[in-house]
């Protein structure tokens, strides 16, 4: 039997590091964009978790005497038209922000990924069926689709999240299907079939883990879109209903006050901006870390 060396060859080192979770984490921790984006996100999560202990005032407490106060030491972000402390409402808004992200992304991803997986790895007729369904969904203008779902389910924050989630399905489905198609003709998938593995074992154990990284990156870019859509729904009065401390709703309610009480618009606007920016930065960092290595 021939002698072999246990050292990895020079040739193998520069090759893709996909699958090495430790290496990915290591690269992520060294990426400045990841720190900024991830840091802000952690801050948001922290604020959401400990909101009741952070806020100086009850975010729902109406106090007409102190209405429309500019930012001061007593009220960091000032007060709104009903005298509520804006800072407290912003902090509570983090909860709704994360909720929207989570629900919309979960619905879109779980249904979208399943459809994409089935379309990409199933029989041709199923692929055609699913893709035509996706095409129908995509034919609707995004907002129109969201509105249609709300019209059916009635306006509320929950239905807004569901609607935004549903509108996000085609994006995930198409991405996953494309990735699955490119992966499934690779030899290691064929090797699993040759070994006798069943269809679902191959789908979940081999194909899916290999399409996960572009999915994560896509998710960090698609989720901000969902948040903005939810904010737009609040703008139309179809999403969060008063007195919910949702940033989009706060923005719309304050729009007439833009020149007279700028802080009522600036605070929720900046909050949305910063939160979405952090998601985008994190997405950029993830893409830089995952993609060139996994290609």
């Amino acid at each position, binding site marked *: *039997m*021939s*002698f*072999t060396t*246990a050292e*990895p*060859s020079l*040739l*193998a080192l520069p*090759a*893709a*590091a*996909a*699958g*090495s979770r430790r290496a990915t984490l290591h690269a992520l921790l060294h990426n400045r964009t990841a720190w900024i984006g991830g840091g802000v996100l952690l801050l948001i999560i922290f604020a959401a978790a400990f909101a009741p202990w952070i806020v100086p005032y009850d975010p729902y407490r109406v106090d007409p005497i102190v209405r429309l106060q500019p930012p001061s030491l007593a009220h960091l972000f000032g007060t709104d038209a009903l005298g509520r402390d804006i800072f407290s409402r912003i902090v509570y808004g983090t909860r709704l922000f994360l909720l929207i992200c989570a629900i919309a992304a979960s619905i879109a991803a779980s249904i979208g990924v399943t459809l994409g997986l089935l379309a990409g790895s199933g029989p041709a007729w199923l692929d055609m069926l699913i893709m035509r369904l996706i095409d129908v969904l995509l034919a609707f203008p995004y907002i129109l689709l969201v509105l249609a779902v709300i019209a059916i389910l009635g306006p509320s924050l929950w239905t807004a999240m569901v609607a935004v989630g549903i509108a996000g399905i085609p994006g995930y489905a198409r991405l996953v299907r494309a990735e699955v198609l490119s992966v499934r003709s*690779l*030899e*290691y998938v*064929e*090797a*699993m*079939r*040759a*070994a*006798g*593995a*069943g269809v679902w*074992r191959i789908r979940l154990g*081999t194909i899916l*883990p*290999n399409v996960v990284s572009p999915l994560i990156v896509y998710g960090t870019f698609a989720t901000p879109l969902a948040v903005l859509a939810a904010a737009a729904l609040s703008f139309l009065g179809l999403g969060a209903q008063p007195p919910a401390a949702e940033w989009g709703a706060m923005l719309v309610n304050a729009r007439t006050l833009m020149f007279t009480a700028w802080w009522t618009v600036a605070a929720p606007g900046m909050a949305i901006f910063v939160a979405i920016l952090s998601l985008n930065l994190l997405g950029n960092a993830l893409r830089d870390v995952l993609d060139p290595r*996994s290609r």
Partner: protein
Amino acid sequence: MTDETLLEIDGLSAHYAIRSGVFARPSAFVRAVDGVSLRIRRGETLGLVGESGCGKTTLGRTILALRPPTAGSVRFAGQSVFDLKPPALKRLRRDMQIVFQDPYAALDPRRTVGRAVRVPLDVHGIGRPKDRPAMVAALFREVGLEPTLMHRFPHEFSGGQRQRVVIARAIATRPKLLVCDEPVSALDVSIQAQILNLLKDLQAGLRLTTLFISHNLAVVEHMADRVAVMYYGRIVEIADRTTLYRNPRHPYTRALFASIPFPDPRHRRTDPPPPGEPPDPAHLPSGCRFRNRCPLAMDRCARKEPPLASLAPNHDVACWAA
């Protein structure tokens, strides 16, 4: 080598449609495998030689029921492979395995090599789950790898080492038939020799029957007992090793031999190489598919395709001129 036939291929065809247009209607057919009949005896190594696009890879995959056939049958130890229901097919897969060409694509980049080799054991329930790591370690040693490498990922290995992992995975279930699809073509010469020697040792030790597919005639001659030459979907010549190399009768086989760059500068080819271009697989010439590149082409060749006929015991050729 015994007389018992392990694999019987009869009139096997695998056609692909090339689809175009809005409704994806088939516009042409690629007859990747077009009426192939072969017998492989138990314990023998059959070499399958041909250039790219000749259908040898498709043939290998179709035999293992990894691609659907268009016609014909494949019988493994008497059982028809395509008639089997999924549970029986799964049982059959224990006995037929494949070693792929590209060691970089044949391993899941997200699985450790130990887990990759373990997959067939898990799928077929071989041994008790807690015994399987030890079985994997034994398999590693069998292919010349340190068992401590089990926990590494494929990208940490060189091409030759990965190919050993692929081989370990293939022999995990102790198959009866091993299809080797260009197993060393992607490897350096010095590593090729290691892997070829390893394959030979395993064949002897495990009493494997092998279908060895390659475009490299010299490698095939080294490994095989009998050799079949394939051209665009059909076998054009099949003979035992020595006969084929001493006395090739089909013009394509002769052209192949004439084209190999022989590693000896004292034997430089002075006559011009065979002319013509490989045909478009979707539009093969009528009659004999080699006729537009063949120096011996006659009228008959355009009209009717020559069948594989026995020229001598153990030597079949498909050519009107032979």
